[in-house]
């Protein structure tokens, strides 16, 4: 079904186009031409429309309920739950998971886009195009290794990047308004002399703060295969870079479609907002020695929910037979990923700190006259 697939080729030489984060244009590495996303989208409007129409027809025919079963029947068990399509450039048959919306042909390397995945209600509202290139992700990973004294030396020198991929990850962005009613227990202390005694008085107060808080664009990833903790750690994004969705930003990257509903993600977002309300209203309380949150009640209204694709570089390294996953925010360059600890270095650091601090404390005590 080649008509289901769109691949953006250079209008001048038909070579595959690639999204260049630096120039924010689609470039052709063969003839050197470059185009804006709008130009390419206009150029391929007819092709996109045909592909989307075909996908819609298939969806109406019921194939969309389980697209892979029908399409990948010939592939046997391996094709179970997968989508099959032919590369429009080389004709090779490609299998992709049902949540994949854009990929690259493993035979000819041409970027492939499956517009049917981004049609109708599945069409994202907006997208942040990649701003950072692959080489910047590699550079950021090396920087991520620096300054970690417990990281095994061999890890940074021998662990090689097995896989690196730019992925547009589906996110729900929530614009919430929250009416919060928070309770705190606060204390004030004073010391005074009463007769022969020194008296320490602790006065307890019940403090209440009510307020309305507005949240703009709280993100929650809408992909089951993406680890929520990784996605949370990549925050924040700069929402000013959001642009209306277009598949023209896809060439050169993988794109996933959402498979988690906004209702499912909403609960976690609301919990984050409520926790923020407690801490933000806490900052309004002053003049006390201690303040402790004792309870809160929040009414949350989701004013607007947007479906967005956000750029993420994923890097996989292998060391001693174990895979380590790192991810980089494709807009800001923030790199996250857990690293292994060297047992020897950990013991060495502990021992060193122990003896150095013991010597320093002893010296200090001696200077204070304690032998």
């Amino acid at each position, binding site marked *: 079904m080649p008509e289901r697939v769109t691949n953006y080729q250079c209008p001048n030489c038909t070579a595959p186009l690639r999204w260049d984060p630096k120039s924010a244009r689609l470039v052709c590495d063969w003839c050197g031409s470059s185009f804006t996303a709008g130009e390419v989208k206009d150029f391929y409007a007819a092709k996109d429309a045909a592909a989307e129409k075909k996908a819609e027809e298939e969806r109406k025919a019921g194939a969309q309920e389980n697209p892979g079963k029908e399409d990948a029947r010939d592939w046997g068990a391996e094709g179970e739950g997968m989508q099959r399509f032919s590369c429009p450039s080389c004709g090779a048959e490609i299998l992709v998971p049902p949540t994949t919306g854009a990929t690259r042909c493993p035979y000819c390397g041409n970027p492939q886009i499956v517009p049917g995945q981004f049609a109708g209600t599945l069409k994202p509202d907006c997208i942040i195009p990649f701003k950072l290139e692959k080489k910047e992700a590699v550079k950021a990973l090396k920087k991520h290794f620096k300054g970690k004294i417990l990281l095994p030396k061999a890890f940074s020198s021998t662990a090689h990047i097995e896989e690196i991929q730019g992925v547009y990850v589906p996110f729900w962005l929530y614009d919430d308004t929250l009416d919060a009613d928070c309770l705190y227990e606060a204390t004030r202390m004073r010391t005074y002399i009463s007769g022969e005694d020194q008296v320490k008085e602790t*006065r307890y107060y019940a403090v209440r703060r009510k307020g309305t808080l507005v949240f703009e664009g709280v993100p929650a990833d809408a992909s089951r295969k993406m680890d929520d903790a990784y996605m949370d750690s990549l925050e924040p994004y700069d929402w000013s870079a959001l642009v209306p969705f277009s598949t023209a930003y896809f060439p050169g990257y993988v794109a996933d479609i959402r498979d988690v509903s906004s209702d499912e993600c909403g609960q976690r977002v609301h919990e984050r907002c409520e926790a923020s309300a407690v801490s933000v209203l806490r900052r*309004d309380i002053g003049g006390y020695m201690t303040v402790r949150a004792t309870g809160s009640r929040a009414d949350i209204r989701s004013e607007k929910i947007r479906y967005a694709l956000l750029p993420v570089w994923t890097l996989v390294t292998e060391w001693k037979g174990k895979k380590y996953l790192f991810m980089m925010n494709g807009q800001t360059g923030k790199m996250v990923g857990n690293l292994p600890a060297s047992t020897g270095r950990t013991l060495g650091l502990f021992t060193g700190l122990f003896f150095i601090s013991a010597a320093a404390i002893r010296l200090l005590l001696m200077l204070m006259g304690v032998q």
Partner: protein
Amino acid sequence: MERTRHAFLVFLLLLFSFSVLPLAAAVPAAVVDDAGLLTSSEAAQLEEDARSFAEATGCGFYIMILGDGSSARSVSISRAADALYDANGWGWGGEDSGVFLLVSLSDRSYAYVLRGDAEKLAGGRMEPVADSFAASFRESGAYEGFRTWLVQAKDAYEAAGKGDGDVANFVTLVAAFLIAVIGTMAARRRLHSVAYAKQADAYIPEKGCTITDREDRYVRSTFIRIPRPKSSQGGGRYAGGSGRF
């Protein structure tokens, strides 16, 4: 009545100080027997012991015996001892450290003063020494009593120093262990950069928070009463004790 007694005492102290100070101008004697209770050889031996203990520990050990004519009542003998310590220019080191025993034969009372580094003996360490002195004085005579005092006071001073050393070692080990644990945990935490977000503060725009109601209500109070440490007979720097034999 109290004021008269204090005035009398101060007069006695001044009189005694002027009579003793010229003699001790060069090197203050560590053992002053104003009552003639000790033989000259006993006094010399105690003097030698006191000096050798002082050189060994860096803390002076002093004894003064007041005769029947120099009365100091038990209620004020502590203050008398405190004043005499200063009047005689006693003490070792920058803090004028010393342990001074004043004995009044007229009312069979004694008082001791702890100064400088010797103040670490306050709080129970000197009571057994004083008890031993009183018992030995009664049962074995003056010389043995004072000898017991000097030896046990020196031992108590050294033991207190050793105790301080033990505490210092313990504090050092515990603090160093905690620093090492905290430092190592901090270094390990740097290896972990993946975590769930708990809050969404970053997504509150400027002026995105409006406080609609504030209420601060007093609920209750709790009180902790700690008895104030009592200064001995009005002397702020005094540390020591007194008794009878």
